[in-house]
């Protein structure tokens, strides 16, 4: 009986170890992210994060330098070559949902030390950062391939316009 108790202890210790190792390797990496902060004309995006990490590329491809690995762009590396991992690496952390609001514009004009004055807003970076790679890797590039249009969106784009006569005013 004593041997079996010891064995149980060892087994439990091993299980804990492997369990923790599993967690440590993932490091709070989400499997999927729902991008809904801008959903209005289109539905929220169900973003398969795990599929993208499984592609094997450096995290910096999407997250710049915020995941602790150096940035890809040499220009960025001038300052961020040794930047440590951030607590929050979500895009919305740095890229504003309203890039031209009064607060943002005032902050830029008042703060002389702000370097990244040309930082695109959140909606723009989703498209600018993702679509380029999708085009190369045959990923989804149509609008509704990533997010279906809502009813508000259909009204906005006048989806019910019947197509007018050609020529003549």
């Amino acid at each position, binding site marked *: 009986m004593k041997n079996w108790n010891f064995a149980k202890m060892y087994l439990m210790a091993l299980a804990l170890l492997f369990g923790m190792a599993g967690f440590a390797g993932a490091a709070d990496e989400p499997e999927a992210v729902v991008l809904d902060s801008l959903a209005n004309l289109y539905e929220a995006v169900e973003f398969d994060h795990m599929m993208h990490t499984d592609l094997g590329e450096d995290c910096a491809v999407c997250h710049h330098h915020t995941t602790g690995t150096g940035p890809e762009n040499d220009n960025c590396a001038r300052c961020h070559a040794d930047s440590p991992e951030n607590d929050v690496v979500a895009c919305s952390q740095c890229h504003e949902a309203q890039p031209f609001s009064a607060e943002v514009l005032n902050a830029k004009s008042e703060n002389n030390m702000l370097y990244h004055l040309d930082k695109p807003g959140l909606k723009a970076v989703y498209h600018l950062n993702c679509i380029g790679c999708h085009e190369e890797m045959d990923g989804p590039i149509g609008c509704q391939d990533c997010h279906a249009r809502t009813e508000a969106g259909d009204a906005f784009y*006048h989806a019910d316009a019947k*197509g007018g006569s050609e020529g003549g005013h």
Partner: protein
Amino acid sequence: MSAISRRRFLAASAAGCAATTLAGSKNALAAGSFTGYPDGMGVLVDLTRCIGCRTCEAACNKEQHLAAPDKPFDDMSVHDEIHHGQKRRPDENAYTVVNRYESESSAKPVYRKIQCNHCAEPACLTSCFVNAYTKTHEGAVIYNGKVCVGCRNCMIACPFNIPGYSYSSAFNPLVKKCIFCYDTRLKEGLPPACVESCPQQVMTFGKRTDLIKIAKQRIKNNPEKYVDHLYGEREMGGTHWMYLAGVPFADAGFNVHLGNEPILNNVKDFLGTVPMVLAIWPALFTGFHLLATKGKDGHGHGEDDTHHIDGEGDK
């Protein structure tokens, strides 16, 4: 001796000098050292980001309560439309359009968003004789539909062929164009609807002076991506909507032969002399008349107060 008295001569000279001085100072103002409103807002349009999705057209249509379009705004066949031998242009129902162009410098087509460029010294404003146009401090060139008489001089004057005309209206036709969303947004410092709607942030909103710096920085950081020119920085005296492109601007449908002088410069020199002419010529020709008739007998009034020159026989 001259028939003119010393008093009259001195009075006329004083009047002539005063008129010249006043006219002259007006001329100096008209000579134009206007460098634009320093806090004017602008928009930087980066055509390397534009994919021709026409979301900006939809946003403008909604914001300005324009008529429903013939085709949905996600219909890309509009890029193949030809009207009167030209691609689409802004009109009364579309204050902005996006056109597609092909360029040898690029495998992918280039898209260009066309709208009023909100010039620093607008030709439309220059040409309008009812003062329907106003260049606001915020940078927008807006117009007052109530005073517009529909003469369409501004359509002729605009070097970018922007103002559209409401031909569809029989009794109240007006000129219509992009107003930078002045009434609904720019007055409160908000970006126009098209800028906010763009999924790729083709347009960047900010102070014009800041945008020029941002544009130069983008060119500097990505020399292989951009043509080294900021269209609208100086063209036609400078516009508040400026463009960056990855292909030669002529390929993207821009008029690259406009020069850097505002339209106003074509007329302000000779128009600036009008006050001086009006002041000087009466004095000058009075002087000629007096010289020509100096000392002649019979100059002056006849018995019956008729004015006749010697040499003419009585009729």
